């Protein structure tokens, strides 16, 4: 690739303006935030209005779920992330064991509900990966149901490649991102 020349057409602006508060909206624009898993939903949106966009922390729920994983690695019920091979929705024997433990727990605790969150690594197109995450979540869903978990105790959702846990661009990062998270 030959460097031909550089033309700067637009200069900065973003940073200065981004910190400002939202008091009024221009015609063609919409603002949405995911505050559903935050336990301070109302406070978060008020904060956003008065002190800027970056004040919300809405991922607390997920962070707790992941940190619980490390508490007991030998207990399959303590493992709440299932990992997959590239472009595959099939479970490894180890993953199968983990899912079965959750099935047993859920079947024995009617009233408990679970969200299965499917994810993909960044390779392949975004829309294909959205579907792949859906298929991965559904694979886990079918096993749970096959082992007696009530269908209405399970919800599936896919984020495709949009919510990686590891930002690297190699197999070690990708293998962590190809996953289904079991969220109670």
């Amino acid at each position: 690739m030959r460097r031909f020349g550089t033309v700067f057409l637009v200069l900065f602006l973003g940073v200065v303006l981004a910190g400002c508060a939202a008091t009024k909206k221009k015609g063609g624009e919409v603002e949405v935030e995911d505050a559903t898993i935050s336990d301070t939903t109302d406070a978060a949106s008020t904060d956003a209005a008065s002190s800027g966009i970056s004040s919300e922390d809405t991922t607390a729920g997920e962070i707790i779920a992941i940190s619980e994983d490390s508490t007991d690695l030998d207990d399959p019920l303590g493992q709440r992330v299932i990992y997959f091979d590239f472009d595959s929705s099939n479970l490894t024997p180890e993953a199968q064991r983990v899912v079965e433990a959750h099935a047993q727990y859920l079947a024995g605790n009617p009233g408990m509900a679970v969200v299965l969150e499917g994810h993909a690594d960044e390779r392949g197109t975004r829309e294909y990966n959205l579907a792949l995450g859906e298929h991965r979540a559904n694979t886990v869903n079918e096993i749970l149901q096959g082992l007696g978990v009530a269908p209405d105790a399970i919800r599936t959702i896919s984020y495709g490649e949009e919510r990686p846990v590891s930002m690297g661009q190699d197999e070690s990062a990708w293998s962590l991102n190809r996953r289904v998270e079991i969220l109670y």
Partner: protein
Amino acid sequence: MRRIVAGMLLALSAGCVVLLPTSAFAALTIEITQGEGSGTPIAAVPFRWHGDTEPPEDIRAIIAADLHRSGRFDLLPAADFLSKPSEITEVRYKDWRLIKAEALVIGRVIEKGPDQFEVSFQLLDVYRERIKVGLRFSVSAAQLRQVAHQISDRIFYEMTGVRGAFDTRIAYVTMNQQDNGDRLYRLMVADSDGHDPQQILQTTNLPVLSPAWSPNGEWLAYVSFSNATSGANIWLQDINSGNRRTIAQVEGAASAPAWSPDGKWLALTISAKGNTDIYVLQVASGDIRQLTRHPAIDTEPAWSPDGRHLVFTSDRSGRPQIYRIGRNGGEVERLTRGGKENARASYDPSGKRLVMVTNRGTGAGYQIGVFSLASGEMELLTDGTLDESPTFSPNGAMILYATRLGRDGVLAAVSADGRVRQILKMHDGEVREPAWAASR
């Protein structure tokens, strides 16, 4: 010049303490990374300015950048010009033959009154010594950039026989990771050269992807999420009013919207009960019909320009490949056979070529390729490892796509012949998911 405009904007923003995130422009800069000197040699003389203050825009610079970006022209350096005419009576054709210009662009900008400008230009054939086209515009300062793009469009058409696509808009998504881990997504609309970015949607931790322009350029369909527990859904947003709605409630996750050429239908993907298929939805009525029925993943539909077919990605043969189906369903035909994976195909305006993401299976990852429907041959246009989301310009002359520059997600544009490439990058954060509007 430009520094003055930027300085004014900065002064304006600094004075306004309560600022709207709506005016938080995510700035894109364009960097031409690759260009070959085999286009038509053309000379564009700086437009003569008749006015009291400084000219609000450098019309010649905008035109020159447009023409260069297309890959079809070689802009001769102004330093080589032997004269600087702005009117036909001042042109000595010999001066231009000497520097081997085939065409000459001259023009002027006259300040007629407060915020009132007259722009005129002429495109001259140097060898035949005659005017190919001349136009005059009366505009405000805010319209000067658009006029420059319209002049570029006219020059492109006169020189190539293909209509220009400079006076068009693009949409794209930006993502900024905040210090607290939040991911801030913005759906942006800008001129085709990245100028004048407008934010039309902002979400926190709710991904935004797959923006798709309605054929009339008034609506964007895109995929996002309502909250952390409901799946992907498709929104339709009027980009002028900001009004938006989700498509008729479907069971399961909806994604990958694609407008039919007449704007009356949306093709989309619905994932329900572990199955992912292509559907078509009548926008006005919300009526929905299933098009593909296969246990594999079928997604990323795109309409042929005549509206009679759709292409889509399916992994029914193992890996993702491109297939075609009639708009009313029927037999599914596999189109791509070469390469390990092919995905996210869309037609060029002629309907003869598809642009897509391809993995040739050589370990080089994902590039953008153009596939000829007649020959079945694929031509690789890019050399990245994670190139994705290609979108043709409305005239088929350029392809905009998402790529990586180091660890950053940036947009890149490549001429359809692969000769000229440029990067559009943000000051900060990732840019992705470009979509080129069919009309302004």
